[in-house]
């Protein structure tokens, strides 16, 4: 497996050869930030195109196919439109909070985006409490959404924000418990170590068999709710709340919410593929050495992105199948079903691990 630290070490040595230590670190930070922002934008464009196409296919349509071959540059045109739109200043809003909210959302989204392990040795934010940091950084987004609803001085935005707050905080319980279940299995919170372990021992979803598969399903449901996506799109429920918390935003400020929504979907899927499907770890069948050797030739980044897009497809499938839940149904699903189930799973996984029943 190709180790990306070769590249990073080479760049580090190159910069240190003609720059003092602090300047080299600074340049590296800027380079990494540029890379992350570029990836962020590129994946957003891919995801929006994918969503439109997949949604269309589920509804027996063709989707965008006029701008460019198969509508491939439709999203670029949309982005251009969004960039050139005016950002309208409203009269009775809380100026500071109103302008700050989209940035909070996008910052939270980018911080969590940086947690994803792209390849062996290509993690941006990686420390021993990686999953904990991921959950903490992800919660900043809720603040952004609540602030947006509050500062807009608009009934619908406020209702949407409150719903979103209730929803995200509730579902974070499940997400946390499910992640805890997997931490019981892996014994580490660091994303790089989780991936390395899965490369050596096999994917977690196979190692943890029954509890891991159930945890994966619960994670998909709760993750979909975390991203405010249908069938859990209560906060924006366009038929009843017009657009929910971002109803008063225009131009690129709205664009940030839009971007963050899709990237949160990607991050949610990326974390699912990291802790359940092995991250950059290639698919190995024990005993089939030739097959395993061929799989090793596929770069880790391809595995990672491929798995992530597979999970994104699953999430879109869910989204375009089910009708929206009512707020009480939504909370009942979490507190009466998902949370007890994930607690049971946690115990089950602990029993499995302590009795050595994992593979």
């Amino acid at each position, binding site marked *: 497996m190709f180790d990306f630290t070769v590249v990073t070490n080479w760049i580090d040595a190159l910069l240190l050869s003609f720059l003092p230590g602090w300047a080299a670190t600074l340049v590296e930070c800027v380079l990494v930030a540029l890379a992350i922002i570029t990836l962020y934008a590129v994946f957003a464009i891919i995801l929006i195109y994918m969503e439109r196409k997949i949604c269309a296919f*589920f*509804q027996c349509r*063709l989707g965008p196919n006029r701008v460019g071959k198969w509508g491939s540059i439709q999203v670029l045109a949309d982005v251009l439109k969004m960039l050139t739109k005016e950002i309208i200043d409203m009269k009775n809003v809380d100026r500071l909070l109103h302008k700050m909210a989209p940035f909070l959302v996008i910052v939270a989204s980018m911080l969590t985006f940086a947690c994803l392990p792209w390849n062996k040795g290509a993690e941006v934010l990686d420390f021993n409490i990686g999953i904990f940091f991921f959950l903490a950084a992800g919660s900043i987004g809720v603040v952004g959404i609540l602030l947006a609803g509050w500062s807009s001085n608009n009934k619908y935005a406020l209702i949407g924000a409150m719903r979103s707050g209730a929803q995200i905080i509730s579902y974070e319980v499940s997400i946390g418990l499910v992640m805890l279940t997997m931490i019981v299995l892996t014994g580490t919170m660091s994303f790089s170590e989780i991936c390395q372990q899965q490369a050596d021992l096999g994917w977690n979803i196979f190692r943890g068999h029954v509890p891991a598969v159930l945890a994966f399903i619960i994670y998909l449901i709760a993750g979909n709710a975390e991203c405010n996506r249908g069938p859990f799109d209560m906060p924006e429920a366009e038929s009843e709340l017009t657009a929910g918390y971002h109803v008063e935003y225009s131009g690129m400020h709205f664009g940030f919410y839009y971007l963050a929504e899709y990237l949160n979907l990607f991050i949610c899927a990326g974390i699912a593929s990291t802790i359940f499907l092995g991250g950059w770890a290639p698919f190995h069948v024990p005993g089939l050495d030739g097959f395993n050797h061929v799989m090793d030739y596929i770069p880790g980044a391809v595995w990672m992105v491929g798995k992530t897009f597979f999970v994104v497809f699953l999430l879109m*499938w*869910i989204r375009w*199948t*089910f009708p929206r839940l009512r707020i009480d149904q939504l909370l009942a699903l979490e507190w*009466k079903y998902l949370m007890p189930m994930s607690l049971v799973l946690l115990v089950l996984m602990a029993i499995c691990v302590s009795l050595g029943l994992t593979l």
Partner: protein
Amino acid sequence: MSNNNYFSGLFSGIKSLLVGLGVTMKEFFTRKITEQYPENRKELKMFDRFRGRLVMPHNENNEHKCIGCGLCQMACPNGSITVTTEMLDTEDGKKKRSLVKYEYDLGCCMFCELCITACPQGAIEFCTDFENAVFDRSKLVQQLNKPGSKAVEKKPVPKPAAPAAKPAAPAAQPAPKATEVAAPAEKKESNPETPTTV
């Protein structure tokens, strides 16, 4: 409220969710229904029940089935049909209504199909053409019977059946009845000469 309800509700819920997922996954792979119109103009075929515009089918002898009864004109809520008829003398000395001009204004047609339902002869129908745009409103008024066309020749109505025609009703209504009654008696005699109609 019992534990049974909780678990049966949970499992039946999961089952119905899976059914839903199965339906959408099947839909994902079915042929897409979208027609990409300007590109597939050559091969695009509208479904049979599409109501494009009204036409009066003519057979190869330039004959149509319209008997000029005017029921369609009366049925039309928008007045988009105008039937002009004349009375002709048949060889056995009776008067018979005959179609001169069948005018149809596409511009005020609302495609309700009431005219087709009203027609006792099945003489008019909607075709599936949909490119109906023209540059001048007057072009929307179309004459449906082709020039020089005439109604399909009926087999001569035999004497006993003739009184069945109610004098009050417009000529058309009793017509199908008459043919029905006539048909069995008629067939043996005139089969070799005339092909059966309607």
